[in-house]
């Protein structure tokens, strides 16, 4: 795989999978925009790319806010002029609690970041890609979508070990 001359935009780029992706894309030649709510972690990812000879910038954003999303798209275009790869990855885990006890405010927060944030990313990045007639997006879901048969174990037994 080769991304020389391509631009990769990565949300949640300050965290584990996002940071590994930033480094991976950069290692294969891409210029990278790291988006994260956490300034320190986001800037660290961009710095790690630069230390290894790559090209990366950090743009802070709360992906659940339309203005922030429009800003990271605008910033990417201003700095690198295009978006070839969009890793729509930012997400939060919320709390481990059964549905019948789940805090409403935490519910709203998780949906805002994980669902609305992904939608907003699509909403404002896709037009940029469509204008050029090319581009690829990868959203981060979870194996929890794919093995729904076991999802109930999570909520019914919060004190036990199973994750999915």
């Amino acid at each position, binding site marked *: 795989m080769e991304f020389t001359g391509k631009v990769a935009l990565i949300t949640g780029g300050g965290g584990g999978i996002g940071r*590994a992706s930033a480094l991976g894309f950069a290692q294969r030649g891409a210029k990278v925009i790291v988006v994260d709510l956490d300034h320190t972690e986001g800037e660290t990812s961009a710095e790690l790319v630069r230390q290894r000879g790559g090209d990366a910038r950090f743009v802070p954003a709360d992906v659940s806010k339309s203005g922030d999303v429009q800003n990271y798209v605008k910033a990417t275009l201003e700095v690198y002029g295009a978006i070839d790869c969009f890793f729509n990855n930012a997400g939060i885990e919320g709390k481990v609690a059964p549905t019948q006890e789940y805090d409403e405010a935490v519910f709203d927060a998780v949906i805002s970041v994980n669902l609305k944030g992904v939608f907003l990313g699509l909403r404002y990045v896709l037009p940029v*890609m469509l204008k050029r007639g090319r581009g690829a997006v990868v959203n981060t879901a979870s194996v929890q979508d794919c093995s729904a048969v076991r999802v109930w174990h999570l909520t019914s037994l919060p004190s036990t070990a199973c994750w999915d």
Partner: protein
Amino acid sequence: MAPYVASKHGVLGLTKVASADVARFGVRVNAVCPGPVETRMMRSLESQRNPADPRAVHDANSANTPTGRYATPEEVANAVMYLCSDLASDITGTHLVIDGGRSGSGGAPSGTRRFIEHPERSIRGLAGHHSMMPPDQPPFSQPRAARRVKASATVSLGE
């Protein structure tokens, strides 16, 4: 975990709809579905599940995975890069699972079977785990086999 699971189901929905909306214009949209990965998020979930011994949750999750371990962030990143690359030029509206075989093992991964058959070998944190068959019930294979026999008997009578 209600909003997390619901939101991730929603992400797959967005992936499918968006991919169909833009496919004719040269843009692809896919998703990755990671299982447990060595990340801050999993550390948080492990600590929430068992504040006294989060490592036990990590061990149990690993044992419950056919590969016997979590994915590394790099392994998920590799799948992301593949889907973004020209190697995946005809792949859109779908997802790649990076979970060490968890979802492919039908809900009873190898670690679980070992526990059912040899409860004395259960590791710390796995004991009494309700995602496995309750100890007072027979393994899945028994009722399934019984159903198959009944079905074939019905067919024989019909003939």
